[in-house]
Structure formats: C-alpha cells, structure tokens
C-alpha cells in the first residue's frame, strides 16, 4: 500500500512540475500562461508536502532516517528554493533546474523502494535528531541550488553571456548553505557527545562533513580575495560532488566499515 501511495504522489508532483514548466516556457510568448504555470509548479511541491506530513504521521517518527526519506525532503524543498529565488530576485531559470533535480531524486526513490522499517535505534532517539538532520537538509538544499546556479553560469560563460546577477545568486545561496552546514556540523558534534561520548571521532561521515565544510570555507575566502568570479563558478558547481559523497557515497568507501552513520545493520 505504501508503494502505491508514494508512486501516486510522486507521479502527480512530477506531472505538475512538467506541465508547470512547459507553461512557464510558453509564457515567454503567451504571458497569460505565466500564472497557471507558477500555480501548477507550486501545487507539485505542495502534493509532496502533504505526502510527507501523512507519511510522518503514518511512521510515528520523523521521516528523516533513511537516504530515501532524505531524498523525499530534497525533492520537496529544492523547487521551493527556485520559487523563492524567482520571487525575490526575479530570476526564473533556476526553478527549472530545481524541478529537474527534484524529479531526479523522486525517480531514484521510485526505482529503489526501500524496505519499510519503522524502528529507530536507541542512539537516534534524541532531541538532537530533528534539528541536526533538518539543518543539514536545508543546507544541502541551498548548496544544491547554488551548484545548479553555478553550473548555469558556467554554461552562460562558455557562450560569453555571463551576468552579474547570475554569480550573485550562486554566491548568496552558497553563503546561506554554508551557514546551515556549520550549524549542522556543530549540532552533530553536540549530539555525538551525548550519544557516543565524544563530539568528534573522525568517523568517515564526520570526516566527509568536515571536508564539504572546508570546500565551501575555501570558496568564501577565494571569493573575498576577489578571485575571478567565473573561475569560482566552476568550483561551486563541482563542490556539490563532495557533498554527494558525504551524503550517500560514504557508505561505499573502504573507510566506512566502522562508521556509526551506516544505519544498515545486520
């Protein structure tokens, strides 16, 4: 029954985004289509929001534990960043990338329905659980959007069409993402002290979280040293790869054999 519900919600969301995006593109010629396009795109995200609320209630615990569950949050929140950027800075292209990325995450979830497990191991039963994961999620959402914006800027740069606002968007999203990443890292350390006895043990996930934090720390300093913004767009676009390794690549590395962050127990 679960799988059917998720399939329905995900399909509905993806159709809303696709039609909304098409109407948005068509509105360049026919301005009357602009509003319906925006409403449809937002509806797609709202469908997922309602689904998450229902799923949370159904599980009886926050759906923030498995990778599939975090992907669900991403798929919901990334388009939201696109909508906010359009509303705030009148930049409309970002939302298309965001909806595309969200669709990609939903498709992964549709192809790999996870074994559904309601249990939460004792170490995860903590008041730190929700703030730690939510702060990271929001941070990753901003950085995913920043990376997408940077990739778009790289594309524009190759066609010699760079804009000042373009690099501004990727820059502000990166700063916001970095602030959330910092909070996530420190919340994680404070929680680790309560659950595992020490705030930092160089667990592979911690190491990779530190690495991604350093990657963006380096960006911010390079930016403040006035390094050519166009070169930095490449850097920002690629930095997200480090985050992806941290997010789900760690489980496949040889170093993860003793990690406390691999929740697949025997």
């Amino acid at each position, binding site marked *: 029954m679960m799988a059917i519900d998720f399939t329905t919600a995900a399909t509905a969301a993806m159709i809303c985004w696709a039609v909304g995006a098409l109407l948005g593109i068509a509105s360049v010629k026919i301005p009357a289509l602009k509003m319906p396009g925006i409403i449809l795109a937002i509806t797609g995200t709202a469908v997922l929001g309602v689904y998450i609320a229902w799923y949370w209630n159904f599980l009886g615990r926050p759906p923030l534990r498995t990778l599939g569950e975090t992907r669900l949050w991403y798929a919901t929140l990334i388009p939201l960043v696109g909508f906010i950027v359009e509303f705030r800075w009148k930049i409309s292209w970002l939302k298309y990338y965001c909806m595309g990325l969200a669709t990609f995450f939903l498709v992964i979830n549709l192809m790999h329905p996870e074994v559904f497990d309601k249990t939460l191991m*004792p170490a995860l039963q903590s008041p730190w659980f929700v703030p730690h994961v939510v702060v990271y999620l929001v941070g990753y959402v901003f950085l995913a959007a920043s990376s997408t914006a940077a990739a778009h800027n790289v594309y524009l740069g190759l066609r010699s069409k760079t804009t000042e606002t373009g690099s501004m968007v990727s820059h502000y999203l990166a700063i916001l993402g970095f602030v959330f990443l910092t909070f996530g890292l420190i919340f994680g350390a404070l929680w680790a002290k309560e659950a595992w006895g020490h705030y930092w043990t*160089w667990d592979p996930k911690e190491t990779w979280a530190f*690495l991604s934090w350093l990657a963006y720390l380096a960006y911010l300093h390079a930016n403040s*040293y006035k390094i050519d913004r166009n070169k930095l767009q490449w850097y920002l676009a690629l930095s997200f790869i480090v985050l992806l390794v941290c997010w789900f690549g760690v489980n496949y590395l040889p170093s993860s054999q003793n990690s406390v962050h691999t929740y697949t127990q025997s």
Partner: protein
Amino acid sequence: MATVRRQLFQDPWEFRESILFTAAAVLAGFLIQIASAGKGIPQPHLPFNALFLALLAVTVISAGLAFKNNPVVKWLGGIPLGLSLILAIALLSLIGGVVPQDTGATGSIAVRFGLSSIFSSWPFALTVIFFLVNLGIGLSWKLVPFKMQNLQFILFHAGFWIALSCGIFGSTDLQRLIIPVDEGKSGNIGFTMQGEEPHQLPFSVFLHEFSLEEYAPNLLLYDPATEAQTNFDVHKGLTTSWKGSDVLVVDYLPSAMPTEDGTLKPVASKGLPFVKVRISSDGRHEEGWVGVTLPSQKPVPVKIGNLLVLLWPGNPKAFRSAVTIQGDNGQTLMANLEVNKPVGFMGWKLYQMGYDEKAGRFSKLSLIEAINDPWLPAVYLGFFMIMAANVLFFWNGIKRSNKA
C-alpha cells in the same frame, strides 16, 4: 602597457609561494613521519599542551600586531596562505575519509606514511599548526583596534581557532574507559577500547538491573520452494494474504515463558514474544504458536502447509542500567543510564554503552563507558562562538536587505 609577471618570491607573496610553502610543510611532515618509523607525533598532556597552546596564541597575536607591516608577516596572516592550508587540510582529511583509520597492519605503507592514522600524523599536525598561525595573525588584525562591525569575523575566526586547537591538542587528555559490570555487583576498573592495562577509577558503579526493550517482533513468511519471503511488524489481529494463503495473528504475547506442560505463561519481564498464527489456504486452516529464540540460538521455524513461519526478534528500542555510583570521596548517586542520556559524576560522564548481545534481553552484563575530557568546555566555547557568529550573520544580512 604590458603587465610584468611577478617573479617567484618577489613581494608581495601570493598563491604560488603559499602553495609551495604548504606543499613543503606536508612533505616535511611525511618525511618526519617515515623517519620516526610511524610512531606519530609527541602527545603532551596537561599542563604541557595548555602551555604550548597559550605560548602559540600569545606569540602569534603579538607577532601579528607588532610586525603588521612586515611583508612576510602580512603573507603569513593572509588569505592566499590560509586558502592553501585549508586545501591541504582538506586533502589530508580526504585520505582519512577514504583509507580505513586505525586498522592498518604494522609495517604496511598506510601505517609507515601515517595514512591509517592521518589525524595524529606529522603532516596533519604541521599543517594544523601553520593554519593556527595563519588564522591567529589574521585574527589579530581584526581584534586591535576593536570595531563592532568586526564582531562576526572575530567570533567566527576566534571560535574556530579555539575549537580546533583545543580539540586537537586536548585530545591527549581525553580518557574513555569501559567498565563491565554484572547485575548485583560493582565495578571500578575501566579498560580502554584497545583493551590495554586496566585503569582504577575514582568511583565504583553498582548495577542493580539491566533491562532491554525491543520493538515488536517481525513475522517472517518463507517459501522454501521459491526462496521468497515477506515480513510484517506483529500486532494482534494482523491479517495479510501472501501466495494464496491468508495469515491471521490470533494472539500476541509480547513477553511469555513456556511452562513445563508446554503451555505459555505471560510474564512481566524477561520473557520472550510469542504469536499464535492461523493460516488458511484452499479451505484448510492451520494454527500454531511461534516464538522468538534468543539471539544466540538458531530460530526454529514452524511449518504450516508449504510455508515456514518464523518470528524474528525486533530491534532493540531502549536499554538501560539502574546503577548506584559511589565516589571515593563518599559521594553517591542513583541513576538510570540509557543511550543518549549520560549522567555526570565527579567530572566524569557515564554512558550506557552495551551489553551481552548473545544473551539479548536476558543479559546480566552491562558495559558502561566513563569519559573524562578536561578540554570540553574550551571546545564548546569555540562552538558557541562560531554559532553566535552565524546568528550575527543572519541578523546583519536581514538588516542589510531591509536597508536595500
């Protein structure tokens, strides 16, 4: 006018000099590491590490202020060197994030180069010390003269300096000891994770009772012919259909014990879960009890029709130890130790760590971890300064966008 490219080591030094310097530091680190036969860095304890850090802080800040206009000091506290060192720390961490840590075989390349203990290796230590110098000099310029608009910068950079330096140099004073205690007995001897010689603790822990709660067991249906299986969280009244058979959980006893005549008697604690299952297939009905076995035993399936029915124990939900802690100074404390709920005692923190997993909920043994970290307040001060800087960032950001 053609721009003349600056020669290497011609003032002002920038990225090329920084990268060369950083690479030299990392290389020197690896050479010392190999020369010292993989012994790693010296690990001074209190008060020597604190003295070293205080000396480093004072030297760096006063050098930064006294030689503010010296080109070498300018470069030492500048962004190009900072960036190179950040990237070097990132690359060394990358090694630590890929190569399994603390597991290498003696004599292997990973051990000789310090790759399998990268975070206590010479290259990492040297890079971090130079980074602290760079960060400290940069900080000194913003500290004096103090300006309110620099507060966010100061909090973030000083917080990072304090957390990083105290976290790394204070790690030598961290004590993590595992105290094994049996029910009805007390223990005051702790062992390190490596199981070296026992350490006498300044207090003893008496274990009244160890208890384990599990999630509801899983009902597993298995078809030996096709090796297909499916499972459900058990509750009374659960119905499901699978491969043409209807399955009903008629009764569920979360905690029971078989009596001598073979019937089941519910018990308040230390029992095992049992379910009564009815399976209907092609008009035939079969009913039987299935129980969970101990983790150390092989599960005994019940065969109904062409299906095997097993009851799989649920995952541990909570485990706790009711203890009385008694200090050598006469102080006593009764407490429940539970995962995520450590208890403080005489400067130590006590954690519920583990139990005899083979015995599962019948474990009479509890593993309690006692941790003493005198540097924790300093590291937390650093953490809270960084977070305060972040809050200021939001505040300033919001104010700025309001003005705009």
